[in-house]
């Protein structure tokens, strides 16, 4: 293995080294000092994230099974950044006495998941893709059941692993049909041979169903709310931001590079999926009082919006999806961070419990408000730009009616986001959550996310950068 291959594999190699390093280091730390592993892991992962940002040229490895481009590097960087923010937010939770003996597992499992995702993103054939998918799925179930003394958390873990296995099976079946039709597992070969024959379309539908499970597209979303509610908040954040982000990245890469020639047929499948996903997500989010379930359904809606970008099927389509995902990382993690901070300080995780929060914790309320308005797509926050470009992408293919439906749904989503704002700022409450100080890492992460929410939208250079990456990948 020469230096060039190491550079191409740097995200995966670094993560592997970091994960194994943390695992070994944990052996030598005495029981009563396990907390120090938090700092160690944070430092290690910060280095991994920063090194990932060093630019390098792309290339292929293992006879085309592994492809690295500037775009895939950037996607991995986004995921790393999201995980770093989640790590910062989880220090308060991990410092609790009942978690002290399993601190390292938290970090190690997440890093292993990330390795799987990185391989999926860089996959050049369906085998590597599938291995990555499984590597990314199994540890997440362990994470969801992290609070294993709580029945809901254990339930979340079991639900996730069973349905994951099921969806993998479905996807594998789809892949085998595609293999049967084209005789190859390599993306580059398949891309040349796909036509709208029944076998390939059927295979594609199964493949999309499997990926739809990861993205929690309706009708494959049924696990989402239960798992989100049962899992610890940081894991919920991980599922809703990182897992989904990775799946979204893979979806655009595969749709735009492998199945580009049959876009005529999948456009209409997606058309229907967008409408049901946005609408169902919205309708269920309207009624939630548990903030985690609420964010779960809201994230289903957000994925529906994201699919609008996929319909663009050109540079703009890919760019808008990646750009939206970057914004979504900051926005959703800001919301989850606030939820986590409040839960750690007071145990409150219902919207009605947030009443009067502005009086006692004004800064947290402001961050939450920024996040919610950004999710709703209100300017001048980043979410507006993200959503507008997704709409632009769909409109570029002439799907105006779909844009109207989606934009009206964005209005409905504003209703439930405003309900939370109303609880925090307007509703009176005799016993609001008491004033508290959150931990320093939490503050740093909320600060970064708030800056992201305000800045990324205006930063046209980031958008243009992603455009150049997309052109690189697709042409």
């Amino acid at each position, binding site marked *: 293995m020469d230096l060039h291959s190491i550079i191409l594999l740097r995200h995966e190699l670094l993560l592997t080294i970091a994960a194994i390093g943390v695992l070994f280091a944990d052996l030598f730390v005495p029981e009563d000092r396990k907390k120090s592993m938090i700092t160690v892991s944070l430092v290690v992962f910060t280095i991994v994230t920063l090194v990932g940002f060093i630019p390098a040229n792309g290339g292929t490895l293992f006879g085309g099974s592994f492809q690295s481009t500037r775009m895939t590097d950037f996607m991995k960087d986004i995921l790393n950044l999201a995980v770093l923010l989640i790590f910062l937010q989880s220090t308060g939770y991990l410092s609790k006495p009942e978690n002290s003996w399993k601190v390292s597992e938290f970090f190690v499992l997440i890093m292993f998941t990330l390795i799987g995702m990185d391989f999926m993103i860089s996959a050049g054939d369906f085998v590597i893709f599938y291995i990555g998918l499984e590597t990314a799925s199994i540890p997440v179930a362990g994470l969801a059941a992290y609070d294993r003394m709580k029945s809901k958390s254990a339930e979340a873990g079991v639900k996730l692993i069973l349905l994951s296995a099921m969806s993998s099976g479905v996807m594998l079946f789809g892949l085998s049909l595609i293999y049967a039709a084209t005789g190859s597992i390599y993306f580059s070969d398949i891309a040349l041979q796909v036509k709208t024959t029944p076998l390939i379309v059927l295979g594609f539908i199964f493949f999309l169903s499997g990926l739809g499970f990861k993205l929690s597209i309706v009708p494959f979303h049924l696990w989402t709310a239960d798992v989100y509610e049962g899992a610890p908040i940081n894991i919920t954040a991980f599922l809703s931001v990182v897992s989904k982000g990775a799946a979204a990245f893979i979806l655009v890469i595969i749709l735009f590079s492998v199945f580009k020639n049959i876009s005529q047929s999948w456009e209409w499948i997606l058309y229907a999926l967008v409408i049901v996903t946005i609408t169902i997500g919205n309708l269920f989010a309207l009624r939630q009082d548990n903030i985690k379930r609420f964010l779960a359904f809201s994230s289903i809606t957000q994925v529906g919006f994201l699919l609008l970008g996929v319909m663009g099927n050109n540079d703009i389509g890919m760019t808008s999806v990646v750009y939206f995902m970057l914004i979504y990382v900051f926005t959703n993690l800001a919301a989850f961070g606030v939820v986590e901070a409040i839960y750690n300080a007071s145990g409150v995780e219902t919207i009605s419990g947030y009443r009067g929060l502005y009086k006692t914790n004004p800064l947290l309320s402001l961050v939450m408000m920024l996040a919610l308005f950004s999710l709703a797509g209100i300017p001048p926050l980043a979410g507006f730009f993200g959503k507008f470009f997704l709409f*632009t992408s769909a*409109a570029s293919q002439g799907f105006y009616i779909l844009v109207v439906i989606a*934009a009206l749904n964005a209005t409905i989503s*504003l209703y439930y986001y*405003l309900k939370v704002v109303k609880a925090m*700022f307007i*509703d009176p409450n005799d016993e609001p959550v008491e004033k508290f100080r959150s931990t320093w890492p939490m503050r740093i992460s909320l600060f970064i996310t708030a800056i992201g929410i305000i800045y990324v939208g205006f930063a*046209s250079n980031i958008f243009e950068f992603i455009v150049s990456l997309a052109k690189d990948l697709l042409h």
Partner: protein
Amino acid sequence: MNILNLFIIVPLLTVVVILFSKSIKTTRVIAAIGMTIQLLLASWLMYYYLSHFGVNDLHKMIFVSDKVWFPTLNIHYAVGVDGIAVAMILLTAIVIFAGVFVSWTMENLHREFFISLIILATGVFGFFISYDLFTMLLYYELAVIPMYLLIGIWGSGPKEAHAMKLTLMLMAGSALIIAGLLGIYFNTPTIDGHHTFNMYEIARYKIPLKAQRLFFPLTFVGFGVLGALFPFHTWSPDGHASAPTAVSMLHAGVLMKLGTYGVFRVAIFLMPEAAHEMGWFFIILTATSVIYGAFGAIMQKDLKYINAYSSVSHVGMITFGLLMMNATAIDGAILQMISHGIMTALFFALIGMIYGRTHTRNVYEMGGLLRVIPFLGTMYVLAGFASLGLPGFSGFVAELNIFAGAFMHHDLFHRVATIIVISSIVVTAVYILRFVGIMLMGPIKNEEHLKLKDATWYEKLSTITLVVSMLGIGLYPVWLTNTILGSLKPIMLKILGG
């Protein structure tokens, strides 16, 4: 640096300084200073415009600056104003200036209140200075966050429900606008592989009629929601009634004009062929707004509801004038935007002041107030006269132009619609005179009211500012009509040339 950017920078600086303010006294002084600068800037802009351009070459855009923002999508940050925009900016500056003084004693969460109010105004200024459709949309929606909070936190009555209703209806409107704008964008021809959001570049092309038939109604209804177009007007009475005084002023005075301005600049200006073809349908809707709003006002007891319904009627008249598609009526409609903006702001300011004293807004519980609070009473009568469209007040010139323009159409349909709209004036006279009579004249109904004090200095300052502007347009409208007519020339070429 482009002077127009100051209209954004000054309020933002004001907001930043307010963040560090400790008490209401410093907060309101900072807000007042900021908005005074804004008013001076706007007046200077008007003066500059008038002094540099004669009647015949008024149509020039001034202070144009155009920076590429998102090159791939050809989105620009483009600012520049013509006479119409200058007039709207002056209107906004006057109303927000008055609004700050009306809120002089806002004790509850004062910093947050003034910050939200000023951000709301910033969105409006930004909307009027920009001519790139994306930037316009950005500023248009910027108003949403502060508006919800302003009504929800500092409002009265069932404020949460009304704030929600208003916000959601306006957002639904902007959902249609987004689709409409994207439709316009992708139907412009490409230059160097790019479509364009630049309003004046789009105006040079004819958007295909098939596309216009889809996107004209979308943008018209989208902006029309904010202009309280029947049947999407229901947010207006509830929202205005629940909002705190300054917000009602700004909302009815300026924000509703964003709707009509958008209808004019985006829907009609960019897609005139569809406007000619489908105008009849929207004429029916606007005529309904006018007459429905007027009758709605008669039936109300609450002062704010009366004025809100009356706004539905008056703003309906603006959209009606725009749909007449000739220079006279459109000139009248734009004048009406400004005239109604000032008049309704004055009304809401006075209602807020009267409510602050009597603690009731029910007309039938008040009486003989003119004797107790003569200053406020007189001002109320003046505002009423302007609303009636009496000669000498701004409303007269505006409405006369609209009706004259409307009568230039000879067909039966336009005639009937015009007569219906004109008849609303009679209805307006009925409710204005009746409520002035009940509230200000006659015996005093409540003994408590005898102790009321007349206006304080800050209340006088804000009302006098508004009254002076109102009379300034009414008695000497030439400067304003010239500004508007000059800028209308190129627009009319596009609208009529087809």
